[in-house]
């Protein structure tokens, strides 16, 4: 046991990203134990080994990969559009007092209507298809990006744009060289949150609308009575997001916060 702990410490030291997995070890063990003594029938509560076996099988058949690709692609397209809309709008709301006054109450109103709450009316308007799903993702990603960008712009100390103007910068250059970099830590936070919400919204949308994707796979499996596949979906969702967030987004957020950070020492 001691050697195992030492091994683990060595592992974490040499590959710090592995530390992300540490808290899952007891969780996995408890799952294993509960499944092993069969408190619940296996059809309700599958054994981790069975989930693994079936997961590998689905991956081998290419089903898992194809569904995953569909989901990730949808998220990527929707998120790109959400950022493309949210970022400039956020700059506008952050920069212009008038835009802030008129748009902020509207933004709060629409932000409060969660992504999925739109689904009923979207289904009426656009039917069960890609348009509906894309709308939900764009909507979900746009708001955190927009709100955080606006907050970031407003948090840039007044003296910085003033300094730039006094050095001869045009308004456009001030936005490009001062406002955007100054708001960048917040913008990255907005994108991180947006992607997180978007990922969840996507799965919800796939369950209701979907013809493919991880969410669809889970819903389809339920219909076929395969709880194992539902659990595979859960695990894949969690693992994928953890990796993306803790290996890419969180470090990016930290880096911009430190490098760009306006926080005084």
């Amino acid at each position: 046991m001691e050697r195992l702990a030492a091994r683990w410490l060595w592992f974490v030291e040499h590959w710090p990203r592995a530390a992300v997995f540490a808290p899952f070890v007891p969780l996995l063990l408890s799952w294993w134990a509960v499944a092993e003594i069969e408190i619940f029938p296996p059809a309700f509560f599958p054994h981790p080994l069975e989930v693994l076996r079936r997961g590998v099988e689905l991956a081998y058949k290419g089903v898992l990969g194809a569904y995953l690709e569909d989901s990730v692609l949808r998220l990527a397209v929707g998120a790109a559009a959400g950022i493309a809309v949210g970022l400039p709008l956020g700059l506008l709301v952050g920069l212009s007092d008038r835009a802030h006054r008129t748009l902020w109450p509207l933004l709060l109103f629409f932000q409060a209507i969660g992504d999925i709450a739109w689904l009923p009316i979207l289904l009426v308007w656009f039917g069960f298809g890609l348009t509906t799903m894309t709308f939900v993702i764009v909507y979900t990603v746009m708001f955190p990006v927009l709100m955080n960008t606006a907050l970031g712009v407003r948090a840039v100390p007044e003296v910085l744009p003033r300094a730039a103007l006094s050095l001869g910068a045009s308004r456009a250059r001030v936005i490009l060289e001062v406002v955007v970099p100054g708001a960048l830590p917040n913008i990255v936070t907005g994108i991180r949150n947006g992607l997180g919400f978007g990922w969840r919204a996507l799965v919800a949308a796939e369950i209701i609308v979907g013809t493919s994707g991880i969410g669809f796979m889970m819903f389809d499996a339920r219909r076929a009575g395969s709880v194992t596949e539902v659990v595979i979906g859960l695990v894949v969702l969690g693992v994928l997001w953890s990796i993306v967030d803790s290996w890419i987004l969180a470090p990016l957020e930290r880096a911009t916060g430190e490098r760009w950070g306006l926080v005084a020492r």
Partner: protein
Amino acid sequence: MKELLVERLSKIYFDPDRGERIAALEEVSLRIAPGEFVAVVGPSGCGKSTLLNLIAGFLEPTSGRILLDGRPVRGPGPDRGVVFQSYALFPWKTVLENVAFGPRMRGLPKAECHAKAMRYLELVGLAHVAHRYPRELSGGMQQRVGVVRALANEPEILLMDEPFAAVDAQTRMTLQEELARIYEERRPTILFVTHDVNEAVFLADRVLLLSKGRLREEIPVPIARPRRWPRLVEDDDFKALVARTLSAVRAA
């Protein structure tokens, strides 16, 4: 270098929370000749920053005029370089990029901008930190960068708002001597705002006393240059002028 003329300048703020009008500046007139070093001294809240921000073009006057070389000032511009109390360096740019910012905004080629920035950094002995980020430097070093960033853009006049108020006393004296040296070598036109009477008398050719938004008195400082602290702390003329200015500030 050109003349700065301020004519009957007033600024009234409106405080919406208290529903009050605050007359921060009332009928202030002054003239700064090319190559002159003028200090405005007064207690905090007397309107120093308001005066400077109006000249810099960050604020609109309620009434009055500001003329630089006969032309009215409209908004901020590179003809008036500003040094801020809080340094206002761009944290995401290196020291070199900060100093090169002004020349770059005016369309000079990049290599030329960097060469120029380097020359100005050498002027204050900071060439060795050119590629560092501002947050890696001490407050004194950051403000040296702030000063040369404004200088490198070759403005008609340099506006400085309590630039050395945030550093420790030791560093402050070094920075004051450095500014005196730069002034003696290059003779830029400077309007320097401070609440520190010693600093005002040490640096300026002329000290203007501002109190409750009005200019009260003008005190010429006929002390020879170069000015350095070891000599001036012993100098009776300097001490007498400081004493006179101090009592004027307290009486105003």
